[in-house]
Every structure is written in C-alpha cells, then in structure tokens.
C-alpha cells in the first residue's frame, strides 16, 4: 500500500484514504461551444498515459477531501512529488512536457 503525501494536510497517509482522479493539468476550455468536434475529442478523451512519470490528480477523500496533483512514476509506482491544485506543473526529470 502506497503512502501518499497530502499537500494540504502535510502528512504521509495510506493509499486507502485517497482516490485517483485522472490526468492532471487538463484545463476545461472556456470556449467549448466554439470547439470543433476534433478539438473537443482531444480535450475529453485523449490522454497521454506515458510510461514513466505521470501527472495525475488525487483526492484525499477520506481525509481533508481536497483534490491535489501528484507526479508519480508508473514503473516504480513511486510518488515523485505532490502539490496543491492550481500550482504549476513542476519540471521533473523523465517527465514528458
């Protein structure tokens, strides 16, 4: 079971308290009505799913209930870092832009 650091609680807590919430840094477009079908498809469905460091959202659902972002290595399963929602994507070695 992973230990995940909640950036709001500032504590390492067991994975059981958290829920995964998909890829991070996807911004809901403000001009959705103007988007072509292809553009909207890209926003709604297309995900990077790289091997290695991924940026993803987690929710401390059985804790402070906040959503936050994390960089996790899908090969080792290790969390590289976690940070608050709204903070910029950190520059990390091995991570795709």
């Amino acid at each position, binding site marked *: *079971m992973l230990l995940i650091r909640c950036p709001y609680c500032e504590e390492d807590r067991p994975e059981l308290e958290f829920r995964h919430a998909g890829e991070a840094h996807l911004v809901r477009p403000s001009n959705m009505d103007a988007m072509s079908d292809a553009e909207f498809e890209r926003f709604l469905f297309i995900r990077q799913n790289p091997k290695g460091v991924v940026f993803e959202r987690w929710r401390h659902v059985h804790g402070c209930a906040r959503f936050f972002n994390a960089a996790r290595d899908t090969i080792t399963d290790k969390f590289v870092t976690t940070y608050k*929602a709204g903070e910029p994507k950190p520059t990390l070695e091995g991570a795709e832009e």
Partner: protein
Amino acid sequence: MSAPYRIAGKGRLTPARAVRFTFDGKHYAGLEGDTLASALLANGVHLVGRSFKYHRPRGFLSAGAEEPNALVGVHRDAARKTPNVRATVQELYDGLEAVSQNRWPSLALDVGAINDLASPLFSAGFYYKTFMWPKAAWKRFYEPNIRAAAGLGVAPDQADPDHYAARYAHCDVLIVGGGVAGLTAALAAAETGARIMLVDEQAEPAGALRYESGTRIDGQDGWDWAQAAVQTLRGMDNVHLLTRTTAFGYYTQNMVALSERVTEHLAEPQQDLPRERLWQVRAKRVILATGAIERHMVFANNDRPGIMLASAGRSYLNHHGVAVGRRVGIYTANDSAYHAAVDLKQAGVDVPAIVDLRDNPQGPGVDAARALGIPIHAGRAVVGVAGRQRVTAMNVQAKGGGAVNPIPVDALLTSAGWTPSVHLFSQSRGKVAYDDAGKRFLPGVGAQDCVSIGACNGTDDLDDLLSEAIKAGREAAKAAGIATGRAGPKLKATSSESWSGGMIGAGPGADADSKGKAFVDFQNDVTAKDIRQAVREGMQSIEHVKRFTTNGMATDQGKTSNLHGLAIAAEMLGKAVPAVGLTTFRAPYTPVTFGALANYSRGDQFDPTRRTAIHPWAEAKGAVFEDVGQWKRARYFPRAGEDMFAAVNRECRTVREAAGLFDASTLGKIEVVGPDAASFMELLYTNPWQKLEPGRCRYGIMLREDGFIYDDGVVGRLAPDRSHVTTTTGGAARVLNHMEDYLQTEFPHLKVYLTSVSEQWAVIAVQGPKSREIIAPLVEGIDLSDAAMPHMSVREGKICGVPTRLFRMSFTGERGFEVNVPADYGQAVWEALWAEAEKHGACAYGTEAMHVLRAEKGYIIVGQDTDGTATASDVGLDWAVGKKKADFVGKRGMARPDLVAAGRKQLVGLRSPDGKTVLEEGAHLVADPNQKVPMTMIGHVTSSYWSENCGHPIALAMVVDGHNRMGEKLFVPMPNGTIEVEVTGTVFFDETGERLHG
C-alpha cells in the same frame, strides 16, 4: 508405544512429554515439540502422500516451509478440516488427526497411480494437447475427470467456525527471519532503542542453528545462543518478537504483510483467541534475513519416499532426535551434506556411502567424514534408486558411465547446494543478480529501504555474517532516525560448518536420453524431461516454460525447483542462466488462508449496513426489506395473507385512492451554500437556476462532461444563497465527489460550500389525494393551501414541534409532500404522521410500489432506465435543459455528433395488447420476430410492472428511434414464445397531470 526411530539422548525434546495423534486412522505417539513430520518419521513412516499428476508415492522432502510433498489434511472436528497442511510445519498437539490426500482407495494402494504408467499422456502441456478432441467432451468429460483425479486436498464443506484477527503496526526496523543473522541484527538494532519487530516462522527462532552442530557463538552452542538471544529480545520493551509468523508479502513503501498462526499448534484452542492474525506492518527500514533453502539432486526416481534434503535429515536428528533411516546414503555436490553424514554416524546410524558429484571434494566436513570412516565416492553420481514406496538402494555410477553399483539404503539424503531466499527482496521490486561462482541469484539493486543479510544475501562465512548483521542492525536504526551511540554488540563465533559447492540442473542419469522420471518440481510432477520438451516445442522464455510445464507453480512456488528448472532450460536453449532469467517471485511466500486475509470482514462485518431512522418501525410492521447499495429499504408491507404481488397492488391502489407514507430517507442530500450557490448550480445542472425564486423547487439533471445523464433530483431553493439538493440513493457519494471536483479545480473562484446532509435529514414522503389532510394537523407556521404552497415549492417551519424542510413534490403523480426532519426525530414524526394517515385510510408503501407508481407516470430512475449512455433528449427530458445557458457541464458533450445523430435509443412506453403479460426487465426487443438468429435487437426493457391502477401491465424501454415508433408493434422473443408489444408514450396514468395539483 515406543517410536522406533527416536534415538535416546539425541535432540532437544523431552521424552516424558508424549503426545498422541493419528494418521489415516492409525494411532501413533510423538513428543511435545515434534512436527507432524518428525513424529511420523520417529515411527518409521515415510509414505504420506500421492503426487498431483502421476499419483506417485511420496514422503517428506524437507523439514520446513519449502515442503512440496508432505501435504496432509488436519482435522479437528466436522467443521475444522484443513487441507494441504505441510506436515513439516504443523506442530504436533495431543489428539491431532491427520489424513493423507489425493489417493483412492488407500495411500498404499492407489488406483490413480495408473497415471504413472500412462505418463506419456500427461507430459508437459498435456492440458493443451491431449484433450482437444472432440471439443464438446472437454466440458462434460475431460475437465470433470481431470479435476477429480488431479489436485490436492478437499476443501472443508462447512462454514469456518473460527475467527481471525488483523492488526496494523508501525516500527523503525522490521527484521524478517530469526536465524543467526536476524537475531544478531535484532540485538544490534534493539540496543539503540529503535522500535523493532522480529518475525520468525518457527515457534522457536534459530534458523540453521536448529540443525547445525558445529557452530558456537559467545561460547555457547548455536541453538542455546539463539534461545538466549530470544530471551534477551523478549525482555526489551522496544522489541516485538512474533513467532509462528510468516512475512508473506512485501508491498510498496515497506509495507510487509505477516500471517501469524495463533492457535494451530494448540490441542484445545481457547474460543476467544483468533485462529490466525494478519499483520500489515509499515517499517521505516526492513532487514531481510530469510536464509537459504537447500536444493535436491535431480536423478531418476528421486521422489521415492525416504529421499530427503540433507539439512532435513539433520534437523530431524539434531532437533527432534529422529533418525530418518537405519542405513542412510548421502548424494551431494555440496559440503554441507557431509555434516549430515557426520552427525548421523556419530549418532550411531549407518552411513554406507557419501556419493559426491565433485571429483575432489575438500574441507572440514570431508575430513570429518573420512575420519569417521565413511566411504566417499567422489566423481560419482546416483543415477537411480530401487524401491517404490520406500527407497531400498541407490544406484551409483561413475560420472562418465560404466558399471552401476547398487548400495542398499533405507533413506537417502541429497544436497545440490543452497538457494538464497530472495523471494521478499524480489517482491519488493529489487533486482536479483546472478552469482556465477555460487550458481545462485543474490539481491542486486534494491528498490526499497531494505537490506538483505546472511544466507539470503549469499554470506556464508559466519564471521562475515555476524559483522554484516551488526552493521545492518545499527545502520537500519540510524536510518530510521535513532541515535546509535556506542559501538554495538561484539560476538565471538567459531564454526566448523561449510556451505560451499553445489550444482544446478539435472545430474547424470537424468540427461536428455534417460528414461526414468527425474523430478525437478515434486509438487507439480514436473520432470527434467518435461522442461526439455517445453524448450523443444518452442518455449523460449522461462515464463513460458513455467506455464507450459507448471514448474514452480502450486503452493510451494518452486522453492526447491526454480533453479533446477532454469538451468535445464538454459542448457537446452544454449544460453547462460542469467540470459534466460528468473521467473517473477510473487506473494504469498507460503500459502495464506482466506480466513486470515478476510479476517474481520465476514458476515455482518463484511460491509456496513445502513438503516434509516424509520427502519425499526418498518421492521415492527413486518416490512420485507431489500438491499439498495448499503441501505436496507422497506420493499413492501405485507398484511396477513398477502404475497408481494397482492401487497404491492394494494399499496399502489391506496396511494392513488387515499394516500401513502413512504420512507425516502435514503435519498442523497447535499446543501449548496454561498453567495455563488446559484451560479454553481447553473454550471453543474442542465437547468436554469438563477431565476428560481427562493421557496420554489425544480427537477434537475446533472450530466458528465461527455453529455450523458449522471444523476437527477429535486432541488429546493431555500434562500438566494442556499439550495437543498437531492440525489439518487446510490448517487449521493459520487454526486458530491463530482461537485467537489468542479468546485475545487474548475470553478475555484465561486464562493460555495458543499455539505453532505443525507444522514442529517429523515425524509417522509406523504403522497396521495389525502396527503395535505394528513400533514396539516401537525404542521405549524406553513400555509399549505395550493395558492400559498403550489406543486414544486419548499417551506421551512415546524412539524410536531420540530424543524422541517417541507417540500411539495411528487414522485407518484399525486399531490404530495416530502417531510424532511432532523434524523433523530424521524421515527417520532413518522409515527405521528402514521396516526393521522390511518384516519384517512392511507397505507405505508415500500420501494416496489414507489417504482410502480413512478413508472405509471413515466418518471425515470437514473441507473435503471438510463445506463450512462443516455442523453436528456433520449429519455424525453429535453425540457429540463437550459438551452440559452452559456455553459454547463456536459453542454458541449451533448452536441457531439453521435449524441445528436439519428437512430439513438430513446425511452418509450410498451403495452402488452393481451392486457396481462408482464415483460421481463432486460428483455430485448426486435422488429421482425421471424428473423433468423442472431436477430437484430433494437432495444431493451428497462422497467416493467403490473399496474393495478391502470389495470394492465406497463413497461418502459429504450428503443432505437423510439420516439418515431409510436403505435408500432415490436416483439420480445422469450424462451417460451414471442410476446407482441405496442410502442406508446411513457405516461400511463393521468396524462394531463391534474392530480399533482389536487
């Protein structure tokens, strides 16, 4: 009853402490401290089982957890029949009842042994080849018969009466294995004050010191030192020593799972003790001191009872005081087996020969054996044995061939060397590295905060091992943040033991052209020939070889077989061993019971049960409940003589004729509060909210971004900045999650609080023409007239003197109210309402009547009539979508090409022209009943009931292009005939909706 193979004066058991047990119904005597294996051996019993595939007679291979052969059933009583217990691990207790497995009619005379003669049928991959034709026979004939003939023990046929426990624990340093390395590391780490957990699978930790006779530490015999160390550790407050406990799984971030056997060794376990306990330990640092497991030699018929590992023979002799035979041969490629020969000889057992595959063995063990006059046959091999149910002779031949010389023996100890137990290290995702000189895989690059020490790290020399263990213990404590202070313990040790040498793969007599069965994996009956065949048939990867032959599978997970199998495959492939690679080690290290894994999560504690405040009343009234998620909901309230059909019909009729009370407390309820509450609702629901006046309600639809319906519910606007949102019963948690997600991440600029209030409000629906009369006498401060409180409005006031949020709304199509009161008052208010209701001939109704009544009105249930691929338009709820709104979640999604294309499934009503056939929910619809199978299915029934109020059956269905099919005839093909139906609108009762208003 004297045990003929127990040697007076040998071993550590007390002769006076006799224990009685049975094996296959026969009575035997053993001693306290025996395992089932040692006690049977003391009585001269070697034959204890039949093998998995060939039903070959089998005895004990080992004296520990790696045992592949000696699996027995242990029975305590009718409900406690544990199959596949390793006799080498099971501690003896008075009255123990053991039975052999996988034999019929008896262990000595087993009909299934015919498989041994028919073995060409059962060679590697036979499952995939032999039983392929005719195809239909697999299911009816081959599979049942194979399952009956193969396999291990029989699962118990009664519920497990025992209870199991679970604990979480945290520590600075977790040490796995209580041999000399683990104990030393524990002493060194414990001295620093660090919180230590030490785990050992034995009742008395000692590791190899259990059988070694040549090791002295701190001036004491090895075993005595180990027991003194255990005493020292037990006396320390910062040390938690767990015995009879196996670390079976190493998970991420130093989470190690342990299985503690609490009562398996007791004759009469106390009822309040758990049988086993699962530990989940989070350690800052882990020290693996898991030792090494001896390998057998691979030669023809090496599975005959009486042929064992050399270390096992030593264990039985030096610990249990049992000789495994009277005339014991040794076959080895390794030094350590010489010590077995020496110990046996000194105990008075005849050792006619040591056969060593090596040409010129040297070392203290060899010298000692020679000094005792034991004949050493160097450069020779055992190429076969005589005897079937017990070995009677070993056939010795020079490596290069020549005459075969049989030497009579009644037991044969073999050693091909030692395999470091890197299981946990590998489970921790550490990479193993091949040590060519030692022919073994050792821990390489680690992935977690752990270190391997001792035999599992390939450290054979005792002095090296002790300093490695002390260093590991101190460094682990330091890494865990503990000041280590003084220099650490100093231990003086001497050892005459030697572990060097060894071979992997098949020996002479088991080479490619040999005839006999030379077993690599005993438990799965995999021979050297099978592995060669797998390679010949094209298996290149060791993972494929494993699956094709089943080598290394089954409960022992290849503890003794993996390296041999790998070496044979590598030789066949013409590759080096590390180039072929090792199969992945997976948890559990040894089998773990389902009881331990499930522990508390069984019966009532499997899943929480949620009950509403009104549940006790419904129960007292004889309600029949149904499970809705974790909730128990009253389904119907049968009266004397009523079945479900009669009760539901009466309830449905009564609601429309008078009124009914319904417990709607399970509805999800979320309070949306803040200056931007309405803006937030605008974004999360399809409907417009800004202009909804306080005091009014609206039916809202929530979409996901993809445009599909996610949830629905009535929302009451209590104040400009406060809405009371209801969700479906099953959707409460995910709707809140969905709202929080958008509020926290997409719309964080909105000033809104979301609070789950599902359990704070009990909800009593009062529905029917008499509903106002029922609630009126109890309500204070709210004008209930149609003018003051029309349909779809909400008021705050009091009922029965307690606060209420009173909704005028309806899920039945009748005039109706939903009375929200604080949950603590739920039952009292219900009872007061019930007293009023009875005066008006009203009834209590359950979820079944609720379903029928709403279906009569065509109201959908999200999740029943929709399935996550329905749009608002599909289900006829276009009117609830605010088309002028600039944005809401799902707005763009709704406009995706496939969601607006023609030919989508749409919600329609169905009527049975015969006026009586109730369709099955889930049944499929076709347009042409005469089409050949497979027919073109154009839809399915989502809801279907008998409607007492309509006098005919009603159904809702999702049908391709359904909205354009009004009046069409469709067909429902069922196993006993095709039913004709007519497509209608979805409202079956009171189409104009007059009843809602009075």
